[in-house]
């Protein structure tokens, strides 16, 4: 799916900055949106991503 439908603009910016592919992140926010915390959680679970 289009990453633009997975997260709000600020989170999309953050994920790019951290080199995270939003397709791999599970969203826990409203309506299944991916939050900043979800991106951080993903990074701490899999530090090799960076």
């Amino acid at each position, binding site marked *: 799916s289009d990453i*633009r*439908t997975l997260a*709000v603009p600020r989170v*999309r910016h953050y*994920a*790019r900055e951290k080199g995270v592919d939003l397709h791999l992140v599970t969203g826990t926010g409203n*309506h299944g949106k991916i939050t900043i915390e979800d991106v951080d959680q993903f990074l701490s679970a899999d530090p090799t991503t960076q």
Partner: protein
Amino acid sequence: MVVGGFTNEVDTIVIGAGPGGYVAAIRAAQLGQKVVIVEKDQVGGVCLNVGCIPSKALIHVGREYAKTQAENPFGLKIGQAELDFAKAQAWKDNNVVKKLTTGVSSLLKKNKVQIISGEAHFVSPNKVHVTPKDGLGEDYHFKNIILALGSRPIELKAFPFGEDILDSTGLLNLKEIPKELAIIGGGYVGMELAMAYASLGSHVTVLEGLDRVLNNFDANLVKPVLAEAESLNMTIITKAMASRYEKSDDGLHLFYKLNDKEEELVADKIAVMVGRKPNTDGISIELSGLDLDERGLIPVDEQMRTSQSHIYAIGDIVKGPALAHKASYEGKVAAAAISGDKGVANDYLVIPTVAFTHPEVATVGMTQKEAQEQGIETKVATFRFASNGRALSMDETDGFVRLVSEKSSSRLIGAQLVGPEASELIGEITLAIENLMTAEDITLTIHNHPSLAETLMDASEILLGQGIHQ
């Protein structure tokens, strides 16, 4: 070309000071870059000088004048109103356009952006030569360059621009209101100015090649505009192909083909507004190492970077709608990318589009039909301004707001508005769509009463099957 001996060294050079270029230059400076901006004409570009801003000013004058001419239901009798058109034009030029362009210049200066007046040409992929109106000019060797060259009106062969045949700029700067005005092209630029001059008292004829005007908007959305055009005594001729004109004592005879027959009309002025083309042909682009696509546009990646990694392109010279707000957004992306921001990207979900006709038309995202074509199941809700207290109190009840949501997720994916302040209202829905909100999010947001924005809350309630006011 005479090439001066002196070469300047710069970090970031921006070519073009329109809404893309000047915003890019300011953001780049904010991010610590040493920035030079080159403009061959006027700071502010098309939008501020001969586009968005002056057209909105004339449209406003037209609306105010038309109000004095139309009957109203609340007992205000105005009598014989007189418009000093020279004063209106001077107001537009000095109090609106000049104020804004002066403002842009001082913003550039405040941010320590060096403004160079002249025409830029590539000498090599890392160097441009800037030729001022008089003088030899200088070379600028740069680390990064942002091309914000803009676009210009398309000229029809049989209608070369001049005293009689006007482009949008000429039409905006008329000294007198023409009695008979013919406009070739019924897109949003053509229809905006057609309605402005019709409001000011011209008899306006619009010739459109397709089967309806404002073709980018769906037919229901355009209906209230066509009704207003009729009350302004405008003549709209569709499926009409303008072929040639002749000048004689009684005016300009404009010939056009309609149903395989040649027809004729007589006008004082003819304006041609059939589209715009990118200004990628005047900068010796071949020396930059860049290739253009078949439309003359420059291909870019999601950080506005061209095939040459230090050359960026934004605005009307890259793909997407030719809109000022798109250009500015892309300018900020390019500036941040140059500063090494890895997170920045040209990844918007939607761009709002507005026609400043009367009533105004504004859209963002998908229509139901567009969604269905992509296999998305939708829900749609429409709310009429006639049921809105604020619209009634303004005596502006024509039109509606229509929201489209995705059935499975309830996410808002599109909105189409026609009516009072549609150009302002579209912002709320743009924010909602870009931030993946649902109709419920809108209904749970308290909207001030009475306001036109309540129509968006009402339409959202209808989407949820709990409409209150309609």
